[in-house]
């Protein structure tokens, strides 16, 4: 936040995704988190192994730069350790908590060190139809397949914005500039797209 910057974390709510789909059939992340909350660094090492890929992937998509991504990923894990007491399994899954923190941390770093123009140039002037498809570098998992199908079913204007924001890691300002859309339109499409995805994924078995 906080502090650095503001930390918006998931709130208290029983939600069908509050299990951890990335871990099948790995360890129970909630149990690990309970150990971490008690200061168990060995449990934290296991937790790191489970979350490193999603945390680093989330950060790197936003930052592009591998070295900076490594640095920010470390910050995320240290924050996870430091603030472990705040995690409540009734509020969100461990991975949602970690990914939300990683995204926010990466955005903070962008704001601090990179201009929007730099990032757009780094992105290689991709056209919207060149946005990575859900098949690119996808982690082979049931969740990935399910999410990919749900994204593909979105109206095209929402799908493009959702993929740019969460698959490619663009900020809404980047997206607005690349697609030549008003900022409000981009935020509206993000909101609608997420709402539809939530309905599709939440309703799935």
């Amino acid at each position, binding site marked *: *936040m906080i502090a650095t910057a503001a930390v918006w974390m998931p709130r208290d709510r029983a939600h069908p995704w509050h299990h951890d789909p990335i871990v099948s059939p790995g360890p129970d992340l909630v149990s690990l988190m309970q150990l971490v909350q008690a200061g168990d660094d060995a449990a934290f090492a296991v937790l790191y192994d489970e979350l490193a890929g999603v945390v680093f992937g989330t950060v790197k998509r936003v930052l592009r730069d591998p070295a900076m991504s490594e640095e920010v990923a470390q910050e995320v894990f240290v924050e996870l*350790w430091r603030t472990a007491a705040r995690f409540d399994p009734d509020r969100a899954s461990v991975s949602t908590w970690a990914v939300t923190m990683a995204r926010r941390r990466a*955005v903070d770093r962008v704001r601090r060190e990179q201009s929007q123009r730099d990032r757009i140039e780094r992105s290689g002037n991709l056209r919207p139809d060149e946005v990575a498809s859900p098949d690119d570098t996808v982690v082979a998992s049931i969740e*990935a397949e399910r999410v990919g199908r749900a994204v593909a079913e979105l109206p095209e204007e929402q799908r493009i914005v959702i993929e740019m924001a969460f698959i490619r890691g663009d900020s809404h300002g980047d997206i607005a500039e690349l697609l030549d859309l008003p900022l409000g339109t981009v935020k509206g499409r993000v909101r609608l797209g997420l709402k539809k995805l939530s309905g599709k994924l939440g309703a799935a078995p």
Partner: protein
Amino acid sequence: MTSDMNSDRIDELIALAALGELSAEDERELDSVVRTDPAVSAEVDEALAAAAALQRTHAEEPPSALRSSVLAAIASTPQERAVPATATLGGERQTTDGPSRVVSLDSQRARRGFRPAMLAAAAVALFAVGGVVLVVSDDGGSDPIAAVVEAPDATRRTLSGEIEQLTVIYSASQDALVVEGDGVPVVDDTATYQLWLVGDGVATSVGIFRPDTDGRVSERFANVDPSDFVLGVTREPAGGSESPTLPILASA
């Protein structure tokens, strides 16, 4: 949605939350709605879960060296204690890093050349609450920061020193103080600011705070009355310190 807030604005804030792009002001605004509107709270949860599901699908293994770096870093990083169950999920904006400590400054003076004149002028009666635990609590109000800032009995003290952009607002009726600032130098993750009450050579930690990326500070600390004490701010390692690390960057 049952909130009085414009639904378009709520949708905008939810989108920004999912994007990780809420400003501190945005966050406070959204937090105030979520506290009072379960429907909005549910929508925020669902949006964050959907965004996280999308981002989980494209994992990328980090360099192997990161693991050892992280594990080494946490070995020297203290953990926060559990926060009150009612604390806002605005996270660090509403919490402290654990029990406050009462620490003699005598050793600090001797070891680090502490400047007693800085504090002696305003130092007052002996601080008689040794060992007290100053814990941030949430009173359950819709905006606990605004409740202090806008309280009829709120009093302000502007801190001066190397950092000149900090103000402390105290309300006896709210039994809390708020630290506010703008343009405060940002600290990286290895550091934090810490607010102290100082009186008669004893410093008591009120808690830690950090500016957002734009240098804004808005932090509430409950169960603390600074009326008879000098306020001091130091820069400390992440997680805060048991005793102030000089220099004092701002005081009043």
